[in-house]
């Protein structure tokens, strides 16, 4: 199980463009990947589920991956989100 906590800084939140890219990249990995926001979570491989979180700017999200390629998946996803998020120190993690 791997985990990353990030803060969304893009003024539009996690909007359609990054969400679509995020889902495309998540689907390249075999691991089960979840994105947690507040008390909700969504399958990171489902665009409709991800958009349903309506992630706004300034909110903390946690990516959780479980599987053989979990670390690689979170590395790739975090890199893709780089323009939209800041890395939140682990001590400040919401989960």
């Amino acid at each position: 199980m791997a985990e990353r906590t990030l803060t969304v800084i893009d003024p539009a939140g996690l909007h359609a463009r990054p969400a679509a890219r995020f889902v495309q990249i998540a689907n390249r990995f075999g691991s089960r990947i979840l994105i947690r926001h507040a008390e909700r979570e969504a399958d990171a491989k489902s665009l409709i589920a991800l958009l349903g979180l309506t992630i706004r700017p300034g909110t903390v999200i946690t990516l959780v991956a479980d599987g053989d390629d979990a670390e690689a998946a979170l590395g790739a996803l975090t890199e893709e989100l780089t323009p939209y998020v800041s890395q939140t120190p682990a001590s400040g993690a919401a989960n």
Partner: protein
Amino acid sequence: MVGLVLVSHSRTLVEGLRDIVAQFGGDEVRVELAGGTDDGRLGTNAVRIAEAIRTILGPDPASSDGAVLLLDFGSAALSVELALEDLTEIERAVVRVPEAPLVEGAFVAGVQASIGASLDEVAEAAVSAATMIKLPKD
């Protein structure tokens, strides 16, 4: 890769929608359009719809990944029905017409197709677009 056929009364509407699919799903997602009448008016055209489906399926429909067709409303459904009647059984077997919104369905289905999903998975993604949450709840 599964392709999309976008059917609307308006040619310009589906042209814009094709841009959206290319932007979010990627240029490799194949999209065929059947928007408006042959003489440029608002309306739907069964012949053009059948043509668009066949373009996606290619010369060997049996080995095609298939086409998901999305339509706007009203007589578009009748034109689609006529177009489907014109297809061979082999062609018809690899076409899905999900109950889905046109714009949101094309966006979600385009992304789903881009990740190499199956015909039924792309059709299901389009259906799920009907419940897309757009406005923040808090």
